[in-house]
């Protein structure tokens, strides 16, 4: 009895000091982010994205101004927080990026397969990141309302949920390993719980984001690709149904959360 008491006292002491150190570190990180909040370099990409939207480009020398992002041709504001969604013309559920490529193909004459194959941060993928940043920014502070009306949208949600929890690879990781519980972190990074609405401006409501660790502008497709890399999974093809299904799952879960896109991330 006596030993047990001593041990529990030691345990409590350890837990207390641990928690204090953690609080100090967490407060330090919060302060660091606050110091960076003003002057997010993502603004440079927003400027570029707006220009690229209006510029006549591609084999057809046309702008994207007639692109239908789900709210009708040319309607940009508010479109971001209602994506992914089902599009009757392509008969597909599309996220912002795959929808933009559809517009680049139909309006401007670009080759969609070629864009899909282009590595992130290069060529038309760079264009896409700037466009997504500007389009996302026009819905800043608006609340997510990803639709679940069409049967294909509901199917994508259910498939996305299964992919989210699917454990595999050398380390038995799934998306849920890091994003399935409240108040956890990897190293010092807070991890949003993406199985439900994680709150305003976190998780799905924070990408595209400017990443300070590599000074790159990352879209959601890019974010998912790198999550799978760290998960020790093989590579998800760009724009594949797996990436769309996961986006629908996270997007619908985030419904009601306000977007802070473009965000600033580690």
């Amino acid at each position: 009895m006596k030993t047990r008491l001593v041990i529990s006292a030691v345990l409590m002491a350890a837990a207390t000091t641990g928690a204090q150190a953690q609080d100090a570190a967490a407060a330090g990180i919060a302060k660091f982010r606050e110091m960076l909040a003003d002057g997010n370099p993502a603004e440079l990409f927003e400027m570029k994205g707006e220009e690229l939207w209006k510029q006549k480009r591609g084999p057809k020398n046309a702008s994207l101004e007639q692109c239908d992002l789900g709210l009708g041709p040319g309607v940009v504001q508010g479109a971001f927080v209602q994506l992914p969604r089902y599009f009757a013309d392509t008969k597909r559920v599309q996220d912002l990026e795959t929808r933009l490529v559809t517009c680049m193909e139909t309006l401007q004459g670009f080759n969609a397969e070629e864009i899909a194959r282009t590595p992130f941060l290069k060529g038309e993928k760079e264009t896409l990141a700037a466009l997504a940043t500007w389009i996302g920014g026009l819905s800043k502070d608006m609340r997510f309302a990803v639709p679940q009306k069409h049967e294909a949208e509901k199917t994508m949600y259910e498939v996305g949920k299964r992919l989210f929890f699917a454990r595999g690879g050398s380390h038995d990781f799934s998306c849920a390993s890091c994003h399935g519980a409240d108040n956890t972190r990897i190293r010092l990074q807070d991890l949003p719980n993406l199985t439900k609405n994680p709150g305003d401006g976190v998780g799905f409501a924070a990408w595209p984001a400017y990443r300070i660790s590599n000074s790159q502008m990352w879209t959601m497709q890019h974010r998912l690709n790198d999550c799978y890399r760290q998960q020790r999974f093989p590579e998800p093809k760009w724009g594949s149904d797996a990436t769309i299904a996961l986006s629908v799952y996270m997007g619908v879960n985030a419904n009601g959360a306000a977007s802070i896109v473009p965000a600033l991330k580690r």
Partner: protein
Amino acid sequence: MADPMRIRANNKDGVTEVRVLMSHPMESGVRKDASGALVPAKYITDLDATHNGKTVLKAMFSGAVSQNPFLSFKFKGGAKGEKVAVKWVDNKGESRTDEATIA
């Protein structure tokens, strides 16, 4: 050609606050790429901010300034509608000038 800067200038109580974001790789010349080769130096060396043609700040940068540099400072004067101009030059001789209207 370098991408444009994002310049914001706001006057409050007679003081103008200038915030500048520059689109620049700021390669220090000591970083190695994935294949182990040195990435050649390319960074902004000098910056000149002017208001009505008069210098309000000069800066000298090294490759230790972060990619896509941010700079903020304040000067006395400047009225809404007037212009603030910022010009940078890098070690390769490339330069860029942009201008913003004081709000």
